[in-house]
């Protein structure tokens, strides 16, 4: 058991080192210079070279890498070149909008997807099934930036119900911030509900053919009880899994929505950092996200080890 734990720990450290090397190498292999962006179009090559020295960017890459790793091991992800704050602070500031957006959107996706999928399965082959299936196809095909702009035009510009962009003025309440998230969350929610509709429909159709459903019906239970209790209850486990998958997709795909709605989220931070080559932010953000994934995988593996005795052998 101890050997297993040590092996997993060793593997985790190896993965983290690999991630650090790759993140550093990829950001530096891309051409572009943060200092040229920082100093502006009129700055001379000489000025740029001088400021590069201040930021240590003139040193050979292995030296820069060594310095970065040393600082990371001390828990310091570095200082953003542009944001005048530590990378950890910049990251912490962005988690709130991203977290609420993903949560809000996945709720909308589930609230649309599960009932529609259920109805489509129960009335399989009927017009209602065809309509919902068509909507699901459409949802999967519409680009999020397009839908975002359409919603902004209707609900922000036309009706004035919601703000067009941003995350609220300084000092506004959480409710006001959530108000800013309604349109972006709707875009992400509606588009991602397509997958949940299709998955719910397929799962429920599978279970409708099970023996225990036939038994429930033969006992004379009302159809609503059969569907809601016996069918939906059993279909829920794979559906919850796909809702989780949707959440993952949203966080990966929220970059476009965050850009259209100008939300200061993690995706936006990374994209803007890439555009201005803010090396410390790119490296820090990617390392933290990758590191958290790796560490949580480690924890879960260890938990499985206690739960499932076969792994311990």
């Amino acid at each position, binding site marked *: 058991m101890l050997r297993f734990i040590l092996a997993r720990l060793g593997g985790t450290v190896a993965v983290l080192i690999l991630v650090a090397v790759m993140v550093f190498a990829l950001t530096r292999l*891309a*051409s*572009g*210079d*943060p200092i*040229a*962006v*920082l*100093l*502006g*179009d*009129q700055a*001379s*090559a000489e*000025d740029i070279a001088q400021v590069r020295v201040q930021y240590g960017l003139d040193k050979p890459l292995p030296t820069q890498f060594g310095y970065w790793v040393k600082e990371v091991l001390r828990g310091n992800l570095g200082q953003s070149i*542009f944001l*005048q*704050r530590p990378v950890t602070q910049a990251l912490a*500031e*962005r*988690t709130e909008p991203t*977290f*609420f957006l*993903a949560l809000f959107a996945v709720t909308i996706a589930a609230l649309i997807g599960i009932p529609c999928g259920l109805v489509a399965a129960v009335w399989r082959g009927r017009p209602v099934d065809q309509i919902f299936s068509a909507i699901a196809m459409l949802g999967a095909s519409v680009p999020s930036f397009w839908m975002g*702009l359409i919603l*902004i035009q209707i609900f*922000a*510009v036309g009706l004035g119900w919601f*703000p*067009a962009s*941003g*995350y609220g*003025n*300084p*000092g*506004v*309440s*959480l409710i*006001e*911030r959530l108000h800013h998230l309604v349109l972006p969350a709707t875009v992400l929610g509606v588009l991602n509900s397509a997958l949940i509709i299709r998955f719910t429909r397929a799962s429920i159709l599978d279970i409708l053919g099970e023996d225990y459903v036939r038994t429930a019906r033969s006992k004379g239970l009302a159809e609503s009880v059969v569907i809601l209790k016996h069918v939906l209850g059993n279909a829920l486990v*794979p559906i919850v*899994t796909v809702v*989780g*998958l949707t*959440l993952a997709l949203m*966080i990966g795909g929220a970059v476009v929505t965050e*850009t259209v*709605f*100008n939300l*200061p989220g993690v995706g*936006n*931070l990374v994209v*803007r950092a890439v*555009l*201005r*080559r803010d090396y410390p932010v790119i490296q820090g953000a990617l390392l933290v996200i990758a590191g*958290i*994934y790796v560490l949580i*995988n480690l924890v*879960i593996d260890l938990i499985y080890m206690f739960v499932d005795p076969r792994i311990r052998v």
Partner: protein
Amino acid sequence: MSSLFHRKWAKRMIALVLCFGPFVPAPAAAAPSAANLAMIAEPQTLDPMGTTADLVATIMQHVYEPLYTYDAKWNVVPMLADGLPKVSGDGLTHTIALRQGVKFHNGREMVADDVVASLKRWMEVSPRGKAVARDIASVEAKGPYTVELKLKTLYAPLLSQLALPTSMAAILAKESIAPQLKDFIGTGPYKFKERRPDQYTLLTRFDGYVARKEAASGYAGKREALIEELRFVPVPSANTRVEGSLSGQFDFADLLPVESIGRLEKAGASVVPIMTESFGFPYLVFNTREGVLASQAIRLAVQTAFGEGEMMAAAFGDTRFFTVEPNHFPKGTPFFSTAGADKYNQRDAAAAKEAAAKAGYNGQAVRIMASRQYEFHYNMALVMAEQLKRAGIKAELQIVDWATLVQRRNDPKLWDIYVTHSPVFPEPMLSPPQLNEDAPGWWSSPAKQTTLSTLNREMDPAKRAALWGKVQQVIYDEVPYINVGKFNSLSARSQRLQGYVPSAWPFFWNTAVGGK
């Protein structure tokens, strides 16, 4: 569904929740009179000296002030200085009297020591200041309200350089001066309050502001902070800026795509489109050091092939937004000149082909580097490539992102032409940087040095205007860069934002918001 699948997704979900779990609830609301101002990006820095970027100037000119500034007609007039400097007979010593009673944001009075320390920092860290520093012998305090600036050689653009908001010769409180500014303490009508990157930069009214007595004119004269809070919101997506203005979310939205003019005009009374005439000029920099365009004769052939009118049309579409004209400075301004006009907008493929052949062109590709960060750069590059092909000159487009372009242009081996743009400045020496030595393109020639040094040493503004014509002629003769034309910018303000004056670096003192 296998248990393995479940396990995998269960792990991922836990990972995600833990990744994005922590958050801080927002504090309670307050309601000062405020304006939301949509800017094109997050400022590169808040150090007013640290960059030549216009965006930083736009924001930080509310916090910091220079000794001199520009009035509505682009004349240099005093701001923190009491009047124009007293210049010695030889033109080398400038004695600057300072205004008395001007307060910094920390309540202390501005004195000559602050000015000297600030100007020294400007000459050390600012890209513009460093260039000017080559001609400055000393800066010294001569009493609490007097500063003496000695030049090594006559340098006519000195006051223009001191007045410019970009890479600003800002006057900082001496105690706040550091290599990396932490406290932003100036004398402006607004003081810095908070910066949340990619969300806003917040400025609040400085109640102790001491305004000038003269009537407001351009950036000059009386400044009054009528709005309590200015929120500069970075909105990089131009579409989002348009929609935000139309929905009333922004009181001002900077630099909108010209295609949106129709929607803004139809939006009714709530949104007012603002056109700033002769806002900027696109220019094409030629690599005079290496590659095919190191030959001046081939550069001339390329100039003959180019039709600047077509380029501007492709770049800006609507004719209300651009002017095709050979003069580098707009009509009605001091440096207007038509010298070299016959070499502008020729679009003569046959003559270009012949000239290229005579110059010994043998089919090398002209590498045109452009970025899509500014869509008009890209559109112009496409037209350029076609015009070159028509003249039998091979063109190769290198489309890169902006961060790559500003790096690669420093290496003469990598490109032949790159596309960029600049605001129209009131003084030739302020832009483009190719008029100085060592800027990308590396233009250096006896004619350049003679005409420019004559221009820079002539202190009489009236005579300088005529001397610029000679420099412009050399530019058309030697083709270190091509000034393609002028473009107007489009911005928008809400109906409730009153008193806004269109300007190259938008400012919001003397503006008020109705309602709230």
